[in-house]
């Protein structure tokens, strides 16, 4: 809540500044830090007739906002790769991409194919990759050196000193930690519910160990840096940022595999500036701009040498966290079939409400 409100304010401020020139407007809905001021200025210099307006959001809000307007109000959105297929089927909020307008040759082959496979409906492609990263565990080595996976979040040894975000990622991670494979159960709702029940029970028991649920990157950073929390679920990019301030705080890919997400580019159905949107996509995927973007986000660009284009401190953090075997063991989020999110939502509410 805290982070999203802040971002909202920041976004409003930006749009006020940007709205002063009359020109074509690119209304971009993206994640916090995915539209650094430096890149926006550079883009507007190169294309003086385009003004960029940014709204910061997250996966759920992006879908909710686009659903409310039937896909209008924004010209480019950046949902994660697994959140497009069912949202498009159910609410019809995106339009197919014209791939000839996008320079896909700069994108890393396997990520591009993966995203295409995830977001193709009736032969039309709805998204291309932008950046990727993982969810896993962050630990403060000086206090908790032996952390290896999701189960450590519920280890009584760290009672009152662990944290997690109460969203679907933690359900999936906990399931992997318990030796199950949720993605393999996606097509079997009954088995999935059974798995969710076990995960719910585990996470309810876990409530006595965890300190609180974090809700945004700032929140998590404050908990970790103050030492109030020593082990937490995290986005890797947040962990890399904290590594710069306290080298004891490292990202640990869980032994069952870090959960990998790819944030994409998708054009809302009511978008009115497709040209500008394609220009922005091609612009931010250029190597010199990828560096600026990655420095701001801490996530890895979906280009073949993405890790090399990270700024030095973050590259060091990635290399400290990931062995090659960890990279092979990544678990990419699979497309969520309709109905699954509802089951997960209920599980999350049960956990939140349990005393």
């Amino acid at each position, binding site marked *: 809540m*805290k982070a999203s409100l802040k971002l909202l304010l920041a976004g409003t401020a930006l749009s006020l500044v940007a709205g002063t020139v009359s020109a074509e407007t690119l209304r971009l809905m993206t994640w916090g830090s995915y539209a650094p001021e430096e890149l926006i200025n550079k883009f507007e210099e190169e294309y003086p007739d385009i003004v960029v307006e940014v709204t910061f959001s997250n996966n759920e809000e992006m879908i909710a906002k686009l*659903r409310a307007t039937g896909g209008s109000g924004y010209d480019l959105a950046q949902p994660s790769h697994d959140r497009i297929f069912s949202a498009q*089927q159910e*609410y019809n909020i995106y339009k197919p991409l014209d791939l000839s307008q996008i320079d896909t040759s700069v994108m890393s082959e396997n990520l591009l194919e993966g995203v295409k496979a995830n977001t193709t409906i009736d032969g039309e492609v709805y998204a291309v990759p932008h950046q990727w990263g993982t969810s896993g565990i962050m630990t403060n080595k000086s206090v908790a050196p032996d952390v290896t996976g999701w189960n450590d979040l519920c280890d009584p040894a760290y009672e009152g000193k662990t944290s997690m975000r109460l969203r679907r990622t933690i359900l999936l991670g906990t399931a992997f930690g318990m030796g199950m494979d949720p993605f393999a159960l996606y097509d079997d709702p009954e088995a999935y519910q059974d798995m969710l029940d076990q995960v719910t029970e585990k996470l309810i028991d876990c*409530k006595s160990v965890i300190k*609180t649920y974090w809700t945004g990157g700032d929140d998590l950073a404050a908990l970790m840096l*103050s030492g109030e929390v020593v082990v937490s679920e995290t986005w890797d990019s947040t962990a890399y940022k904290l590594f710069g301030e306290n080298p004891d705080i490292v990202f640990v890919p869980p032994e069952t595999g870090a959960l990998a997400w790819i944030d994409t580019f998708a054009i809302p159905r009511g978008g009115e500036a497709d040209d500008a949107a394609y220009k922005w996509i091609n612009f931010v995927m250029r190597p010199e701009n990828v560096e600026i973007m990655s420095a701001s986000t801490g996530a890895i660009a979906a280009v073949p040498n993405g890790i090399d284009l990270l700024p030095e401190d973050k590259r060091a953090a990635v290399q400290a966290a990931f062995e090659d075997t960890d990279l092979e063991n990544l678990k990419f989020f699979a497309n969520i079939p309709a109905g699954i999110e509802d089951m997960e*939502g209920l599980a999350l509410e049960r956990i939140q409400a349990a*005393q």
Partner: protein
Amino acid sequence: MRSDTGKLSLILLMAPFALWIVLLIALPQFGIGYVSLREKVGPGEYELGFANYTAFLGEPIYWNTLLRTAWMSILVTFLALVVGFPVAYYIAKIARKRARAGLFLLCLIPLWVSDLVRAFGWIVLLRETGIVSSSLQWMGVISGPVELLYNDITVIIGLVYTVVLFMIVPLVSTLDGMDDAMLEAGYNLGGSRFTVFRRIIVPYAMPGLVAGCIITFMLTAGSYLTPILLGGKNSSWFTEQIYNQFITRYNWEAGATFGVLLLAFTSLVVWVGLRLTGQSLATTVAKE
């Protein structure tokens, strides 16, 4: 002729109010009511029915959260009354005329900062590495850091702090109109301090007291930020359920149902409260 201009000016005067009521209150409520009656039968397919309401009754988490929210809101209202009454009495009856405006202003000052900032103020004070915990350690009262956030007591403190002003304002304006002669008469007739309080002050203040209770109760039951930010892992506030349904579960039908239920339930509590105190809306919040 004259009555025509009279009518016209009346219409013009009423127009903004009528538009406000219709466009911003009535229409959205009807919309929410309609959405809550839509049953989802498949992707993009809906039919009318009460399935969302039966789903609410069938899932104990939901109505437990609603009851919990109502019970904690009543507690917050009561505590706000206990805290607010002496303050209001002091401002209206004891403080000198000149000091009154200043005191009233002091009460208003916290409202100049947004709810969000005030909630963060509490977080800075109460967190494990926060000001209260470290000062207690420095004074040697406790040996290790203590976590004061993320529990129901903190939520209640935060809520009382947020709403107490809305209790004080109506109480002050009611008590202000009370003639001191009534109190003197009470004492002269041999009444003790307690009797005077119970038989004269409370009955006189009743309209303001009930108005304050209604406002604080409604504000508390509908609050979102304070319970979420201060409650942490154990907070479950009904407004959060509504947000979850709308945003994280894309289930607008259930979210709308919860909204209708929250409105109906809080209205019921207010109605019961009015009946018990023998007041009506006309004598309290709508008092001239």
